């Protein structure tokens, strides 16, 4: 009786183990294959157009994430600048100006913080980068006041202290 019970128990345990191992392995493989061969996003637009829109939205997604997650500290803003430069390097030309605006905003915010922390040299340098980026996207006023307004608005609205 004991031997039958033990045999039944080991059969059930082996079955459960086989089910879990086989299931886990095939879950992982199926998920990877589905992601790999799912085709481009927005495939309703056709391959070329869908692929282009996919690249554009991917870059803008990175831009929005950077904007949402950045805090008003020099470290966080520097990290955001690094991320945005990386996104810009791989982004389609259509969205380059949108990324440049966010880069300029981050540099302006950095400059504002550096000025408050008595580091005028770094503040001037970052303001110059911001001004040059804004000029490249057609801004009419790139004065110190305009940059501080841009930074202040951003830090007040989106970037959490």
């Amino acid at each position, binding site marked *: 009786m004991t031997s039958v019970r033990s*045999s039944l128990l*080991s*059969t*059930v345990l*082996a*079955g*459960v*183990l*086989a*089910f*879990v*191992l*086989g*299931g*886990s*392995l*095939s*879950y*992982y*493989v*199926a*998920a*990877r*294959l*589905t*992601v790999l061969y*799912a085709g481009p*996003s*927005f495939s*309703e*637009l056709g391959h070329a*157009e869908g692929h282009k*829109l996919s690249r*554009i*939205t*991917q870059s*803008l*997604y990175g*831009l*929005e*994430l950077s*904007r949402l997650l950045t805090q008003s500290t020099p470290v966080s803003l520097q990290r955001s600048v690094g991320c945005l430069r990386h996104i810009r390097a791989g982004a389609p030309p*259509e*969205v380059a*100006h*949108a990324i440049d*605006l966010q880069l300029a905003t981050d540099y302006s915010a950095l400059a504002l913080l550096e000025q408050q922390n008595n580091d005028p040299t770094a503040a001037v340098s970052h303001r110059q980068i911001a001004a040059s980026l*804004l000029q490249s*996207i*057609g*801004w*009419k*006023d790139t004065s110190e006041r*305009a940059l501080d307004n841009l930074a202040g608005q951003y830090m007040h609205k989106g970037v959490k202290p």
Partner: protein
Amino acid sequence: MNPQLRITVVVAALAGILSGGILGAYMARKNNGIVESARVIAASSATAAFAAEQFRHADPQHAREAVMLQIDILQQFERIAPSSVHERNLGFAYTRLAMIDEAAGQKADSEVAFEHAKDWFQKVHPEGGLTDVQMESFVRHLEKPPSDRPPLP
């Protein structure tokens, strides 16, 4: 290994592979859909914010480019999945475009853009048409910080 145990292991493993495979493919598809939706929302928001900033601060050519980027992306989203949010945003984007063209002295282009704006607003509010002045005042209203906005008529 006794035959009973072998059969149990093989059957259980096959059942596991089948159910794991189906679940894995389903979850991956679902996650792809969630990521795609997040990208659509992010792209709409990023282009709207960019167009608004450029409209306020940039020269007409760059402001126009920013608004055209927003319009182009929203129209592609509309082709994939029509939504009243995109339609309303297209109405505002075309109004901005009309205002830029009007300020640049491109009267004919401005009128065409106002017509497009009306068409998009009409889709969201089929019962009542908006005049050019009303559309402009909506855009100007949105340009102000929330604290400075007077109540709309």
